[in-house]
């Protein structure tokens, strides 16, 4: 193998300094590569690649109706990804955003389910707050397990997501099932005041989009300008230096997970109080996992994440379009997401490394 690799394979050589060009080029190159590979796959599946590409990548932009759906999808993806990215930078791998999202949705639904007759403009803001709290509480279990019990946060947060999905099923098949809902696993429809007000009339885009953008700016200020954000980043990049400087690791883990949980919980609340209008099984279409990809694709940078959330939202809406017009199974979106992250991870290697052919390396040595 070593003789083989010496003869045929180039080696990765660490750059003197990180390449800015590679940093900026990695996401679009990854997107292009993943698109080519996936269209190839659709050809193998006997689909017309032109029709799929049109439905997936162009159609979402062609009408205001479908672009407004893209704006609607950006909400949860952007919100969760911003929260996760803060944790990822601190090397706290919360991959249980899906569960925190579900708990946020459940907590927010408690008001309209228990008080369906309540009225007043206070209802939806309180629901969003409750959802944020629910997500944070669910994440705090992971934080406790990690900080106090030293357990791996990846495994704990993922297991808690699976538990959350079962808890949602339990509520929807049992105590929270709509008695007049023909036995469907869903709650009652929420009253008018339990819905986030519409932002752009004629679409489903609501005020939570503004909230999401405001929180993205807050994330940028927090990570790029604040001392706390700086401490988190140092903890992630150089844990020893951070502890030498007196930055408390346990505190950083709590903060990372709580921020992630709050963001995911708020996203869950905004989803039930927004486009859905009721608690249903299908609230969790993998936003929590897709947001991990959004966070990485955006370079874990708050501004980059806005762009990558837009791309992922287009992929979701485009996938729905392609399902209808090109008979593409919806699972194709997951395949695309996975390959997109893989392509990005390859592309981003060139930020810190460059390829060097072995012979050239030998020649350069005296």
């Amino acid at each position, binding site marked *: *193998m070593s003789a083989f690799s010496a003869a045929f394979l180039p080696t990765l050589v660490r750059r003197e300094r990180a390449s800015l060009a590679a940093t900026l080029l990695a996401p679009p190159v990854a997107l292009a590569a993943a698109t080519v590979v996936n269209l190839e796959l659709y050809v193998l599946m006997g689909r017309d690649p032109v029709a799929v590409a049109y439905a997936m990548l162009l159609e979402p932009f062609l009408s205001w109706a479908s672009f407004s759906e893209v704006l609607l999808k950006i909400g949860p993806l952007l919100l969760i990804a911003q929260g996760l990215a803060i944790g990822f930078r601190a090397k706290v791998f919360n991959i249980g955003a899906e569960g925190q999202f579900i708990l946020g949705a459940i907590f927010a639904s408690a008001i309209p389910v228990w008080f369906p007759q309540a009225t007043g403009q206070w209802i939806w803001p309180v629901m969003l707050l409750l959802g944020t709290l629910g997500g944070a509480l669910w994440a705090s279990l992971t934080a406790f397990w990690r900080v106090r019990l030293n357990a791996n946060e990846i495994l704990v947060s993922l297991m808690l997501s699976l538990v959350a999905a079962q808890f949602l099923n339990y509520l929807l098949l049992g105590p929270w099932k709509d008695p007049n809902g023909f036995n469907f696993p869903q709650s009652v429809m929420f009253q008018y005041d339990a819905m986030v007000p519409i932002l752009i009339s004629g679409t489903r885009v609501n005020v939570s989009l503004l909230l999401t953008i405001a929180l993205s700016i807050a994330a940028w200020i927090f990570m790029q300008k604040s001392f706390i954000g700086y401490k988190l980043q140092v903890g992630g990049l150089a844990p020893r230096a951070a502890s030498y400087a007196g930055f408390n690791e346990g505190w950083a883990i709590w903060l990372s997970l709580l921020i992630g949980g709050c963001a995911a919980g708020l996203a869950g609340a905004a989803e039930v109080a927004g486009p859905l209008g009721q608690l249903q099984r299908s609230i969790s279409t993998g936003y929590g996992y897709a947001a991990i990809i959004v966070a990485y694709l955006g370079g874990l940078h708050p501004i980059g994440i806005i762009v990558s959330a837009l791309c992922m939202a287009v992929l979701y809406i485009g996938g729905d379009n392609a399902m209808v017009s090109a008979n593409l199974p919806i699972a194709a979106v997951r395949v695309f997401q*996975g390959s997109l*992250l893989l392509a990005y991870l390859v592309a981003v290697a060139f930020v810190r490394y460059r390829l060097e052919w072995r012979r050239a390396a030998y020649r350069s040595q005296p």
Partner: protein
Amino acid sequence: MNAIEFILAGMLAAATPFLLAALGELVVERAGVLNLGVEGLMAFGAVLAFIIVHHGGGHLLGFVAAGLGSAVLSLIFAVIALGFRANQVATGLAIGILGQGLSALFGKTYESLTVKGLRKLALPWLSEIPVVGGLFIQDVVVWLSLAATFAIWAMFAYTKIGLVVRAIGENPKAAHAIGYSVITVRFAAVAFGGTMAGFAGAYAAVVYTPLWADGMIAGRGWIAIALVVFGTWLTGRIFLGACLFGAVSLMGLAAQATGLDVPSQVLASLPYLVTIIVLGVISADRRLLKLNGIASLGEPFER
């Protein structure tokens, strides 16, 4: 048959998907690599095996295809995480998402179809013992998994290959300095882990519950990764852990059979809750993890 006999008889079969995947991940982690894509590798192997068995290819071919397919997928992980030195956590998650996506894509037209499982082989004499006899009536894959457990234990305890893998996981620079190719061994370990995950998925889909449903792996790949931690990277303890999870996943059925009034969702989340609790208990003993943990786990190797 009472609940204890029921659990004893079914425990090993229920444990097999956990066991096979965890043994694979054990070898991967012992070599210093963290592959979090096990869930997706299992799902991919499961769908390949199911399709082949459904079209009459037979169980052997199904397992071979699952092993090969998941090995190929795990090699993509190896190229990106080891070749390009990408973040292993992110690469593993991506492979997991890709594997689950491919599984759903390929399995779409097979939803709710069934295949025939495997015949059970009874050990003479032992299977006639009252109460525990059921333990000795198992299908051939269970017996082979037990053999694999023993083989992997022996490999780490007695063979040079086992020693090399451990050395590379503990101190890749030293292993490299004395002439071992760290990357080659890690690639081989990852491919082995992928193959085992493929077998685990195949067992789940064409033997244990021979019915196709999207998402049928249902977190078992993640529990397998947790099992490696529970077992503190020791083969024997991982085997015991897998048996525990086999028993836990049967407890739900046993409880329902006795007419216990517990919501099915509570029973379904039992394995996840047990994982969380055991993970907390074992990890709280920091010394235990430090003693047995893999020093270079998840770190890219650079000369």
